[in-house]
């Protein structure tokens, strides 16, 4: 799916020099992936696209701080920038603290198996995550995808650790429920 050349090094070098061609290739190669990252955090396509735009401006501006550390390091670096941009957005708009608990969250839920998750298409899973209340979603993303500890999440979002843990638990509960439902309807 990705055009593989220029390679990461050439690409980053080109972008560092402000080479438009390199920038364009970087965008074309990574924008889709970066958009999905933003979307997973903000849950809204238009907002995610705005953030993607801002994120790329930030990326092009920050290339002198980028050091290539092996295959994949470019993408990882860009993702971090996108996540930061997204978190900034969420914090700025005070969205996280506004998040309200969904009423009917089961205290207990039946966990799906890995095999069941496997059956569900990517975009459907993305939809489940996007539908999470913003607080749940943010904690869930940071914990699951960025592998942050609750302590780190608490610091990042300016909430307490317990809150982080409980939001994660609830997020998982909602997702588990959605997975089961989907399997019932489509299985």
């Amino acid at each position, binding site marked *: 799916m990705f055009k593989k050349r*220029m390679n990461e090094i050439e690409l980053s070098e080109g972008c560092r*020099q402000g080479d438009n061609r390199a920038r364009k290739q970087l965008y074309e190669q990574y924008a889709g992936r970066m*958009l999905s990252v933003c979307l997973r955090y903000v849950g809204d396509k238009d907002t995610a*696209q705005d953030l*993607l735009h801002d994120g790329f401006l930030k990326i092009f501006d920050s290339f002198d701080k980028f050091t290539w550390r092996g295959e994949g390091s470019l993408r990882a670096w860009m993702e971090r920038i996108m996540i930061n941009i997204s978190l900034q957005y969420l914090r700025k708009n005070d969205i996280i603290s506004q998040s309200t608990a969904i009423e009917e969250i089961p205290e207990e839920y039946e966990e799906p198996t890995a095999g069941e998750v496997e059956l*569900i298409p990517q975009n459907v899973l993305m939809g489940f995550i996007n539908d999470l209340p913003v607080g749940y979603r943010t904690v869930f993303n940071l914990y*699951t995808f960025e592998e942050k500890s609750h302590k780190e999440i608490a610091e990042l979002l300016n909430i307490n650790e317990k809150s982080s843990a409980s939001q994660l638990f609830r997020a*998982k509960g909602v997702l*588990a429920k959605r997975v089961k439902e989907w399997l019932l309807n489509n299985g």
Partner: protein
Amino acid sequence: MEEKELWMNKLKEKLTDYSEPIPEFGWEQLEKELVPPPVERRIFPYRRWSIAAVAAVFVAVVSSVSFYFLQTPVADEMRELSTKSIANIPDVLPNKNTPDIKGEQIAPVVRPLDRRRKDRIAKASPSIIAPANCIEANTNKQPIENTDKVPADLAQPSVSDDQNAGENLSEGTGKEETEKVAVTKAPRKPSSRDKLQIPTEKPSTKSGKWSTGVAVGNTLGASSTNNLGMSSTFQRVNLTALPGGMVEIPKNQVLYFQDGVPFLRSLDAIESIEHHQPISLGLSIRKELKYGFSVETGLTYTMLSSDAKMYSGEKFKQQLHCVGIPIRANWSFYNKKLLSMYVSGGGAIEKSVYGKLGSEKLTVKPFQFSLTGAVGVQFNATNKIGFYVEPGVSYFFDDGSNVQTIRKENPFNFNLQAGIRFTY
């Protein structure tokens, strides 16, 4: 707990590479905001030019060093040494040779052997022994002049130079005196081979690039000539008085002495050859690897041209057109959008595809192998295409043929290559 991790892991795994469709016009919108270039881009043109200037100076310095080297006495020496070996292969021993006894009449002349000077002299003094003169006008009979002496070490090339082209001997002996062939010998160390020498000679001296040789003259003492300016000395040469000692020299051959022993040699042989700086053009394909390394191959075209002087006195242009395939590894130590600089090393195999000596075809069968090292500057026209200039050094292995080229004379040489390179 286990199970929980598993489904979450699966979910993470499934979404790790998930990509949304790229928003329409996303890049165009972004590009608009990128147009006012960031700070770094603004200073870039300045840097670019200064880099280009530095690169140009660098190339100029390296090239002029090589050019300088080619002009130095060292390079000259190398040339002389190697020409000597070609120039003096005797073809035939004359069956008859009567040395001139009237040595007293002959004034030894100090003759410069230095090639750089020779040219100047040559202009001033037309050749006496143009082939037409010696052969046609004289029905193949030519009196031999005896010479006095030539310092042994540098004598050979100069002797041969002189006698046929007759550059130095000259006006006095003149055109009227077409019957003579200048003969020289190298006498410093008498040996059994010196039998034919004329006794009047005296050792002459040389220093540095200068050596003295002796041509036939009238009455001038050998010793007096050593330190004279050469133009005055060789003007005195007068061969008219030379009487006896006729020897028959077959057509198309010429007599010359080596260490006092006379030889005949074909006029068609190359007497001396002067090589020009080879010019190479290249087309190369480079494959980039990591960390600035790259490998490269391609096609080079090189023209080796030389001015050859035959024993007949005629001058011909020798040209060899070679096509080569280099294989090299490069490391780029400076790499920007428009310019990159690199060092490279490798080898090449070359084949002469067409050659000419005068109007005759010249074939060089064997392949020519070489090792090369170079420093290069490349100006990138696009991402894939660039123009490069590369001063470098090469070592050429002897290809075993007997065609003389600069590579044989001077197997380790400097060169300058320019070309077009495709990078992918």
